[in-house]
């Protein structure tokens, strides 16, 4: 997928960037939905619904951002210029 001898970005790289950008939006909304929903469920049974929904939303955002970081650095590990810092394991 990533040609190690390519010195310039190819159209494959453009597609990968756009693909990754849409995945970011989907991870963020999925994190908000899922953990916000979990917070709402917990709030329904234990009271203080707004606190749990807010906590769920924040945790969802944090986890979605961590997942984005994990996916982006995993792609970066295949690319050429970061091979020196993150040698493939």
């Amino acid at each position, binding site marked *: 997928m990533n040609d190690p001898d390519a010195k310039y*970005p190819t159209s494959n790289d453009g597609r990968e*960037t756009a693909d990754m*950008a849409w995945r970011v939006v989907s991870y963020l*909304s999925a994190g908000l939905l899922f953990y916000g929903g979990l917070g709402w469920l917990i709030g329904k049974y234990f009271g203080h619904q707004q606190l749990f929904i807010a906590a769920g939303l924040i945790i969802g955002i944090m986890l*979605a951002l961590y997942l*984005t970081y994990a996916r982006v650095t995993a792609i970066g590990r295949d690319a050429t*210029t*970061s091979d020196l810092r993150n040698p493939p394991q």
Partner: protein
Amino acid sequence: MSILAEVTGSLGSIGYGLAAIGPGIGIGIIFGQGVQAIARQPEAYGVIRQNMILGFALAEALALIGFVVPFVFGK
């Protein structure tokens, strides 16, 4: 004390509209500078792309929070 000015109606929509200004500008700056950086040094494409996507994710998170909050905390 009498009310001098009042905003009624769908405050959530106004809130989301205001919340979308910042991330819109931010994402524009991120990708604009990213494309400029790639144009200056195409070999560094991998590193630039990583940081572009991370910056975009952080800015987009704020826009999505602004979208959800009126539903959760509104009346």
